[in-house]
């Protein structure tokens, strides 16, 4: 299979963030010797070369479908990336425990899968937080939403000192598939919900996929401020509607007063 290398090397050298870099020892599969290499972790890709200044890349490891294993050894700080059965295990060693711990953590968090689950979870928390704010603003009397959702992302990493017995971590283990909290919507009285626009993100669903984001295809950075404004507008509209309804109520009440003057 052809991996279009130029695309990868371009990605490596472009301005998107480097998530971690540094020297590590990498075990050569054939002769079981360790060689010092310069590693650069970017998104879900682990690049390696001989030295930081080198233009020539030795290789890249795509970090999907692997577990990160912290291994224990005296005076030696190994760890491994293990892909499934029949697939490779990459072995590394750091110079000290702190470096070892940091790399293990960084690699664990690196997968697209992990980030995707995290974004979905935060998206849900965001919608809940907005709802809470809306309900506070409109002074509704219904109960606030049930206690915060149990985090769907079990804290996957124990304090590193507890982790030294060959434990392995897999992003897929740590993140149980998010369940749709559809029951939450049922708790609120439908009358008190602002009328929902078909194009607005469903409040209790996972991060919207195709067709649900109000803005598609534009520059992501611009998109976020637009998204923010978009949702802000909705809150603003709800507020105005409520103020208007209060005003009408007040006027009606005043009309009903008998003029004794």
């Amino acid at each position: 299979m052809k991996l279009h290398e130029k695309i990868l090397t371009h990605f490596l050298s472009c301005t998107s963030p480097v998530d971690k870099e540094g020297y590590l020892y990498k075990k050569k599969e054939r002769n079981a010797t360790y060689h010092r290499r310069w590693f650069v972790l970017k998104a879900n890709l682990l690049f390696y070369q001989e030295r930081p200044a080198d233009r020539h890349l030795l290789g890249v490891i795509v970090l999907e479908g692997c577990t990160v294993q912290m291994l224990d050894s005296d005076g030696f700080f190994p760890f491994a990336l293990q892909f499934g059965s029949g697939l490779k295990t990459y072995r590394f060693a750091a110079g000290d425990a702190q470096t070892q711990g940091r790399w293990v953590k960084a690699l664990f968090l690196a997968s697209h899968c992990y980030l995707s689950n995290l974004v979905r979870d935060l998206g849900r928390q965001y919608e809940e937080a907005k709802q809470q704010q809306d309900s506070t603003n409109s002074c509704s009397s219904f109960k606030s939403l049930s206690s915060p959702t149990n985090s769907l992302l079990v804290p996957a990493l124990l304090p590193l000192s507890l982790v030294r017995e060959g434990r392995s971590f897999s992003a897929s283990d740590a993140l149980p598939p998010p369940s749709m909290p559809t029951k939450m919507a049922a708790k609120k009285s439908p009358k008190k919900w602002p009328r929902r626009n078909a194009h607005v993100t469903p409040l209790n669903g996972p991060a919207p996929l195709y067709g649900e984001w109000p803005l598609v295809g534009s520059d992501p950075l611009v998109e976020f401020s637009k998204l923010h404004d978009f949702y802000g507008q909705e809150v603003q509209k709800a507020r105005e509607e409520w103020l208007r309804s209060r005003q009408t109520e007040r006027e009606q009440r005043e009309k009903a007063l008998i003029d004794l003057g």
Partner: protein
Amino acid sequence: MRFNEKELVCLSRQPSEMAAELGMRGPKKGDVVKRRLVKLVVNFLFYFRTDEEEPIGALLLEQCRVEREDSQTFSIAFLDEAERKYLFECDSEEQCKEWIDSIIKASYEFMRKNLIFYRMEIHRLTGKDPLEQYGISDETRFQVNSGSHFMARDTSSL
């Protein structure tokens, strides 16, 4: 450059919501349209000959520009080379839109920006950092200014 080919082929076999037979044309002059099974898995676009199990190739969907070419065709340009585009012919306008949207959202960088947005907003609305409970608030990859290159370089360890 070495890469974990077997593992990547394995990844290409994972289930995907976006997998379809499309007309695909390479970026070089003289490349013609060929029917390929195109499959989006994480931030990679794999393409297969329609009856084969192993993909012909894998395209990393980062730093690329996805554009609508006409009602049923979209293109992906890499390496800031606007003229060198891969073209994909879909069967309908809707399918074309769906692919463009999915590819944009599959990018790791797009997702990272989403994450930072949510993190900041949740903090603004609730006063809490949502990443604290997972013990990952200090990770460089989730920082707001993660474009900065003033990162700790672990040269001291070895």
